[in-house]
């Protein structure tokens, strides 16, 4: 390959979705070229283990269709854009595992609503992205297909890259790693308690979890039904708006889907925050907060003021109960949602002992990883007779109180600004204690419990050169406000860092 070609390919993988869209329409490059450049990047990045399955044919076919549509002048909004798809989304004819052995080899005969919408808009699929098993995890260490390696490496004092492997966050860690490493400009993620926002923060990209019900859950392997929401992960806020718009919309096949119009979110991006009241929840100022996180937060508050916003102090008094409530509600729902993986109809079956119960036990013992088993056990326990009232019912009450906290906050502010995660990315094995891992969700879980739109925007680097993210939380259905605040922060932060290629 000549150097110019190589440069051109690199340049194509550096493009944002918006730039791809504009370049394709201007015929600066073809969708086929765009697909090939990304397919090559995906192949070259296998050490990251971001993909469980690569689907170059899918991307090329979509590119060919896009080129033809572009020639006719009738291309869809995402025509020719190659995307990564989290392996939680059922993709017709392409293995869908949710990162678990129990679904290894499972090829759905149906397409999830979200991916169907993306493909109908002209996007292609580069492959299925690795993830924490059944979306349970914050580091991608629970995947049955090997952990995803972050493209980021810390810088040593001498300026050299450390060899220490870092996690890409989770559960959408394949998504965050692939977008940050320029394997795709956009990927789907899902967020139950922070699974879009925390990995976005860990890898220096943007990601938004919309209002619960914005994106259909039909065809998304369920973790915790009342919390699961799909959303986009991209390198900037504009791309989040573009991709979210294509993913959203009412779906009669999902009873919890919102029958609300999908606004033009991209058009709402002005960066002008005049008249916007930005709330700072005092309960998020944790004792012993990482000074680098605190500094980023302060910088973020300065930036929004510069953009015209006023900053107000607010209280979310039940914040400290959010994490315990979440780790009751989510496992409870999961323990029931995962009952269908029983070896009877699809996926793994381990026949041992000759009885139905023995088959169940052997199949589920072999098919589920330890974290999934832990949560099934927690969930089973909290729903059991005699414990239901003490745990599940109490947690639901807490959930109501947390939603009320936010509703009260909206009386005095329009969006909330907080850090996304309490730390930068850590290394695999650093949080071997599950409770330490769960604490990573401390800032993201409350808004999940309340079903609110929330996004993470890359805001700063640590002293060792690792990205940190700011979280913007908004009112129900106010993705426009969230995205615009994110847009203002992004512009002010001027975050331009990218992982140096070592793979």
């Amino acid at each position, binding site marked *: 390959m000549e150097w110019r070609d190589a440069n051109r390919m690199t340049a194509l993988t550096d493009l944002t979705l918006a730039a791809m869209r504009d370049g394709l329409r201007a015929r600066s490059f073809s969708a086929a070229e765009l697909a090939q450049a990304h397919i090559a990047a995906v192949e070259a990045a296998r050490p990251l283990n971001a993909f469980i399955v690569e689907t170059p044919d899918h991307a090329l076919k979509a590119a060919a269709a896009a080129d033809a549509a572009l020639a006719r002048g009738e291309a869809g909004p995402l025509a020719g854009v190659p995307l990564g798809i989290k392996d939680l989304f059922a993709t017709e004819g392409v293995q869908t595992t*949710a990162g678990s052995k129990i679904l290894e080899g499972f090829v759905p005969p149906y397409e999830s609503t979200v991916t169907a919408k993306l493909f109908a808009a002209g996007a292609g699929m580069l492959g299925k992205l690795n993830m924490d098993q059944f979306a349970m995890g914050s580091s991608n260490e629970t995947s049955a297909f090997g952990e995803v390696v972050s493209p980021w490496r810390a810088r040593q004092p001498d300026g050299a890259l450390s060899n220490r492997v870092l996690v890409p966050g989770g559960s959408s860690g394949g998504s965050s790693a692939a977008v940050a490493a320029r394997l795709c400009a956009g990927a789907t993620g899902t967020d139950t308690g922070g699974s879009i926002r925390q990995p976005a923060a860990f890898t220096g990209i943007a990601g938004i979890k919309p209002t619960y019900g914005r994106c259909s859950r*039909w065809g998304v392997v369920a973790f915790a039904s009342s919390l699961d929401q799909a959303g986009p992960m991209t390198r900037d806020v504009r791309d989040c708006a573009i991709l979210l718009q294509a993913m959203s919309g009412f779906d009669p096949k999902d009873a919890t889907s919102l029958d609300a119009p999908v606004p033009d979110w991209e058009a709402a991006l002005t960066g002008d925050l005049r008249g916007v009241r930005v709330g700072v929840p005092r309960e998020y100022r944790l004792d012993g907060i990482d000074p680098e996180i605190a500094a980023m937060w302060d910088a973020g508050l300065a930036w929004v003021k510069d953009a015209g916003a006023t900053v107000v102090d607010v209280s979310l008094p039940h914040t400290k109960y959010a994490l315990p409530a979440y780790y009751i509600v989510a496992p409870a729902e999961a323990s029931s949602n995962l009952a*269908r993986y029983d070896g*009877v109809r*699809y996926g793994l079956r381990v026949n041992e002992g000759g009885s139905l119960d023995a088959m169940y036990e052997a199949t589920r013992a072999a098919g589920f990883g330890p974290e999934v088993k832990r949560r099934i056990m927690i969930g089973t326990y909290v729903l059991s007779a005699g414990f239901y009232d003490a745990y599940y019912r109490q947690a639901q009450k807490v959930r109501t109180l947390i939603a009320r906290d936010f509703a009260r906050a909206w009386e005095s502010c329009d969006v909330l600004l907080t850090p996304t995660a309490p730390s930068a990315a850590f290394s695999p094995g650093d949080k071997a204690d599950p409770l330490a891992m769960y604490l990573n969700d401390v800032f993201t879980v409350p808004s999940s419990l309340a079903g609110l739109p929330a996004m993470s925007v890359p805001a700063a680097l640590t002293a060792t050169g690792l990205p940190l993210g700011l979280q913007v939380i908004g009112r129900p259905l106010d993705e426009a406000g969230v995205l615009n605040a994110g847009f203002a922060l992004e512009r002010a932060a001027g975050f331009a860092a990218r992982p140096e290629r070592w793979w």
Partner: protein
Amino acid sequence: MSDAPFTIRGTTGDWEIVVGLEVHAQVTAKSKLFSGAATAFGAAPNTQVSLVDAAMPGMLPVLNGECVRQAVRTGLALDAEIHRISRFDRKNYFYADLPQGYQISQLYHPIVGEGHLDIEPEGEAPKRVGIERLHLEQDAGKSVHDAHPAMTFVDLNRSGCALMEIVSKPDIRSPAQAGAYVRALRSLLRYVGSCDGNMEEGSMRADVNVSVRRPGAAFGTRTETKNVNSVRFVMAAVEAEARRQVDVLEAGGTIVQETRLFDPDRMTTRPMRSKAAAHDYRYFPDPDLLPVELSETFVADCAASLPELPVAKRSRYVEALGLTPYDAAVLTAERETADWFEALLADLVRRTGKPATELAKPASNWVTGELFAVLKRTGGGIEASPVSPEGAAELLALVADRTLSGSLAKQVFEAMVETGDSAAAIVDARGLRQVSDTGAIDAAIAGILAANTDKIAEYRGGKDKLFGFFVGQTMRAMAGKADPAVVNDRLKTALAG
């Protein structure tokens, strides 16, 4: 002494029985409770299964509004409280024919609350049985254990079909009441159109809760006999289980609260294979489904869509049409019969211009007599009747205008059943018209009297019974077509000499 309608005389004294029934009725709907799959009975295994019914990953339930409508209509027919907000819960357990690993049901907030059903048990006074609740739930699939020596096959056609579970209060005190309750409920469901009531196909089955007690004492421990699928078996299960409990108690034992099965071959109950531990179903609200909120308009529309129900219809037949309570009960037992009868009566009124009050009794007699006899012979229900209500009205109109006598009408009806021709056509073709012409009848009578002078003497000597002989002879001479009233009248005159 007990004033209960049914007691079991044990060796230590009398026992009363206390029964509550949980009836599972499959909702008549084209598709399942939470999926678009079809629900026809008898389809090839696993051909009526959607991705949702098979619990494929990522599939979600969406509530079928028609099932909600039918549940509300049924609740209204049971004079029950309709809950404006209800909710679905998950009942978690593992079984091969339960693909989700949970059944979606309504434990905490059922769609229908308390109501009642009026029953008329055979040989007992009418009674009102309380309804505790009615809720919607999914059916499970079917496990087939006997198709292979080592394997169980699973048919998911039924998986996800909508069931109404209708729970009675423990108000039932005899096997006859239990039977009458199931019959009345089945009839009501068929009137409402919310369930076809087909017990052979499993569209309706009952779980029978039975306990026994000393007269007036507190309720005893109950057992639940599952999936009893006919009225006769429900009655038999109640009696067999009650007698078993009495035997256990009188032998110094205690009743264990357990689930049992009815054995129709031996007419006894036996414990279900006990699963190692008692199930903890871990009910919790299904997070895939929103609460069901019913508007007043929706409930009002459901009420407006209800037909006249059996109890109201029966009293109208007695009060407005002058039928006997017995005939009214027979005609209203099945909606199809009542509809048929009403169509016949309406057409008869139209044809004759006579009031329904005058025509109802002969029409009722004809339906419950002539028609039912033919149906019994041909072995079909009224929906398979060989004559239409309009065809029958034509026949009965000919009786009403005295074109046909009762016995001629019988002949014509037989011919209608045989040929499918209309009554008028048969009357014309076969000349079966009744003769009321006194000249012809007098001539026939004169001939009969001339040939039987000895019998005339005997009759005049006081042997009144011979009048029948003269009637018969005259009718025979008239080939059965003479108007019997005219024959009677003319004969009396002639014999009086």
